[in-house]
């Protein structure tokens, strides 16, 4: 905002917040002085200066600078007096004191006393004679503030702005225990613009309404008064709203798509038996997926198997095959199927659903969305827990083209119109298809979106 004529100048004054108005008379002084003069804290002064910068009155500069600040003991000494000051006070009063009484009289511990005597001896203000501490300086001299004291009161000071006497004091105090320290700080300074120079020093006496209160509304106290103008352009602090987790949002989106296609949701446990997770899905028992390094197994638990007929059928399917299959031809072990696993896919739900399905229920369409597990190390593309979705269509006359049809429409609804069907292998689907989606005009295939998201079987 640039303001030149008087009308605008007035408007500008009307936009000043109470803190800006407080600062204006002192504008030009250093940041630390502003804090002291206005009795505002640093944050309030900084914010007011930022507002003034927005209005074009000044340019703020923040620099990292080395600054001398009070350390723990330093803060205390500013309140209570340096040890040498306290010792001097005692000596001024008594002229001399026995060494053994000095500490007690001055309220110092042994270390402090040693430091105080050292400092005063350097200045030739005391001497030790016959076990007594004797004041050598005149009383006026002793009462005068030492450079170290003046220095401490001035802190914090930027290291590069120290005057010779400050440097001397720093030299004296630096090696003493936790009196001062040098640290990196943000130092705020500013430079007035032409506009700022015109306003600097001005006292603004405007009777402006800061905030409209219920009381004012009641008494109509706002009548005949002006409201302070706000800076309606500058940024306001961010706020955050409540939100569903993005995975829930994604799940709800996918659920909606399945429902639009007429599918029924399957639910079931996250923890299941090897039987449902693997055996019922024709995954042989020596399959690498069934090893500890791939799948989470629960310690010390043995599961129950479903009805004997189903178990016998699954066993037969593995050992010698059923319905024209040769099977895997190995000895199927019940104990392997009884192991408890954290489900590695939602397909175990499909297996459970199919096992319960009767011919009268057909045709049927099911879907599942759920958490699944893999024993992985976590990195940017692997998680131990993640979500999957799948659908299954059961009807006497569905075929491969129908599978592709459902996949196509599902992915279209997901926002992937350009997909490609690619052959793939899964132990429990035949034929199997993998979906690739195109991310640009290049014909090349990038990324794999899903495994056989849709399973299907032919019944009847």
């Amino acid at each position, binding site marked *: 905002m640039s303001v030149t004529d008087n009308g605008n100048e007035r408007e500008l004054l009307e936009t000043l917040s109470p803190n800006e108005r407080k600062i204006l008379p002192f504008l030009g002084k250093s940041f630390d002085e502003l804090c002291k003069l206005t009795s505002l804290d640093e944050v309030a002064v900084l914010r007011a200066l930022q507002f003034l910068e927005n209005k074009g009155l000044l340019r703020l500069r923040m620099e990292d600078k080395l600054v001398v600040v009070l350390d723990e003991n330093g803060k205390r000494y500013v309140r209570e007096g340096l040890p040498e000051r306290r010792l001097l006070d005692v000596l001024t009063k008594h002229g001399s004191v026995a060494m053994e009484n000095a500490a007690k009289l001055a309220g110092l511990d042994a270390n402090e006393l040693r430091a105080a005597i050292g400092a005063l001896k350097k200045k030739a203000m005391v001497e030790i004679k016959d076990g007594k501490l004797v004041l050598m300086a005149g009383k006026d001299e002793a009462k005068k503030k030492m450079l170290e004291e003046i220095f401490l009161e001035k802190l914090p000071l930027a290291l590069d702005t120290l005057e010779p006497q400050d440097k001397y004091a720093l030299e004296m105090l630096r090696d003493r225990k936790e009196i001062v320290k040098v640290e990196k700080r943000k130092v705020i300074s500013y430079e007035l613009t032409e506009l700022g120079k015109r306003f600097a020093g001005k006292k603004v006496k405007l009777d402006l309404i800061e905030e409209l209160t219920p009381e004012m509304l009641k008494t109509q106290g706002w009548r005949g008064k002006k409201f302070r103008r706000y800076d309606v352009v500058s940024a306001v602090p961010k706020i955050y709203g409540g939100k569903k987790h993005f995975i829930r949002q994604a799940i709800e989106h996918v659920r909606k798509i399945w429902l639009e*296609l007429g599918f029924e949701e399957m639910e079931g446990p996250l*923890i299941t038996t090897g039987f449902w997770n693997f055996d019922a899905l024709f995954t042989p028992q020596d399959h690498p997926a069934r090893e500890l390094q791939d799948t989470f197994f*629960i310690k010390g*638990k043995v*599961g129950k198997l479903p009805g004997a007929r189903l178990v016998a059928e699954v066993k037969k399917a593995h050992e010698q095959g059923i319905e024209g299959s040769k099977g895997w031809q190995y000895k199927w072990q019940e104990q392997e199927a009884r192991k408890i696993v954290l489900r590695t*896919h939602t397909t175990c739900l499909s297996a459970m659903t199919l096992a319960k399905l009767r011919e009268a229920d057909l045709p049927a369409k099911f879907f599942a969305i759920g958490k699944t597990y893999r024993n992985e190390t976590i990195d940017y593309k692997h998680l131990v827990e993640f979500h999957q979705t*799948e659908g299954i269509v059961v009807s006497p006359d569905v*075929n491969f*083209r*129908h599978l592709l049809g459902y996949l196509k429409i599902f992915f279209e609804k997901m926002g992937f119109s350009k997909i490609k069907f690619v052959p793939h292998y899964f132990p429990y689907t035949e034929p199997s298809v993998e979906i690739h989606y195109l991310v640009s005009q290049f014909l090349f295939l990038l990324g794999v979106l899903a495994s056989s998201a849709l399973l299907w079987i032919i019944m009847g």
Partner: protein
Amino acid sequence: MLTTFRYCARQRHGCKMAIINLPREDFEKYIKLTDEIKEKIFMFGVSLENVTDESIELDVTPDRPDLLSFHGFMRAFLAFLGKKPGLKSYVVKDGGKSYEVVVDKSVTGVRPYTACAIVRGLKFDEAKIKEIIDVQEKLHETYGRKRKKVAIGIYPLEKIKLPIRFEARRPEDICFVPLDFDRELNGIEILQRHPTGREYAHLLEGMKKFPVFVDSKGEILSMPPIINSELTGKITEKTRDVFIECSGFDFRVVSKALNMLVTVLADMGGTIYSMKLRYPDKTRVTPELMPEKVKLDKTNVERLLGIKLSETQMKKLLARMGHGYEKGYVLVPAWRVDVMHEVDLIEDIAIAYGYDNFEPEVPAIATTAKASAMEEFKSKIAELLVGLGMLEIMSYTLTTKKAQYANMLADENMARPIEVLEPRTELSILRENLLHLACKTLGDNVNAEYPQRIFELGKVFSHDEDGKSETGVREEERLAVALAPGNFTEAKQVLEYLARMLDIKLKFRPAKHESFIEGRVASVLLDGTQIGYVGELHPAVLRNWHIKMPAAAFEISIEEIFEKKFCKN
């Protein structure tokens, strides 16, 4: 599928893929690697992972170990492209009397089966030796299940004297120089000292006798499935003829592995010779390269794929997948291990037909959509809490003991955590509650903006004492809410708002709970059943999680509410 990044090649479950590298120069002697050919590789069911000037990296699915070598892949792929279609036949010559392996009955309980062959007239160069070593390794890794099901040995014939014996001996009676060693070791020493021995020692664990192949001079050729002899087990560029053995526990499996190997060697220019295997009960002859006859019903093909095909078309498609066809029967190559049902052949026909060429169709199957009532209920609760400006979190269901117990001031000695075996991360137990994870989230976000008002909906796990479940684990849907800064009143306000909106009546009773401040925690009751807790978190809990704000929280069972509300009758 939602977390799509999961599906990098290695992760597709039920599907340990194997990477092979084809020398690009050799590949391009047959076909130029154009974009079109790259796509054909995908449409053949093999993933093209990476291409450089030197090599073509492929990811092969575990059902096709026969593709795990340059020659094996080229044979199948050239057929698929229509360049060399049909069943490839190989001549197997009879090697005569000394081409014999005596299988001693001592191997019966140890490693009972072997299938062997000899291939002659090979010309090895560096590339071919590498291919042979690679395919051996890949087969060991995949089809051989890390040498458990199949172990393979290939030996230069000039170094050994036929016939061969396959027998089991006590480990201390086995003495030979293993590969890459310069002195003799006995069976036990090999398992302890040789790097390969140590890696596979578990495969011979607990056995009193170890299997060995011995030639007629008494020279030990190898100790399967561990290692070959340095003297007889190394192929060089001078090798012309080789003896191959595959050993394992299933004759069909070792025989298939042999078929894959000899056909690759034959494709390299060798001539295959059969061997007689004198088993204690009968004599077998390997390799058995006669194709297998599998019945295929054309109507099943048409019904499953939704397309019409003439028999000639079908025959042509099968030829593109390397199969022969004769009057209703498919002649399946002897090196294919994945054909166990007609449907596997139908899939091959689909691949040859081209997945691109199928017209996708959504059938007119009218069914009624139905969402899970519990999931809808959870969404409803999420909406209510979001309306209060709260942010939903989703934590892992796996957690750590420290997080679940020590950090929450719970006594770990009294706990019975449900543990998973050999986790790869520190997450080793199933969560019993959501509360500690809400605290974890607050602790992870101490530098973010306040107020932080979070909730989580999810399952917790406990031991199923009634034995109702198949797994011995009870799963329960819960809701947790945490407010920072927050006090008891604020937490209870949220809970009571929720109860009003869900039209349920909650009661509160002073309670004790180690994670909350004493006197500022209540149990939450629904129709007399305790369904959870609400309270101000204990300062020691906050400190354990490095939370710098006072916080209040509650956790309740959604399942109890759901059942009371929807399953009353």
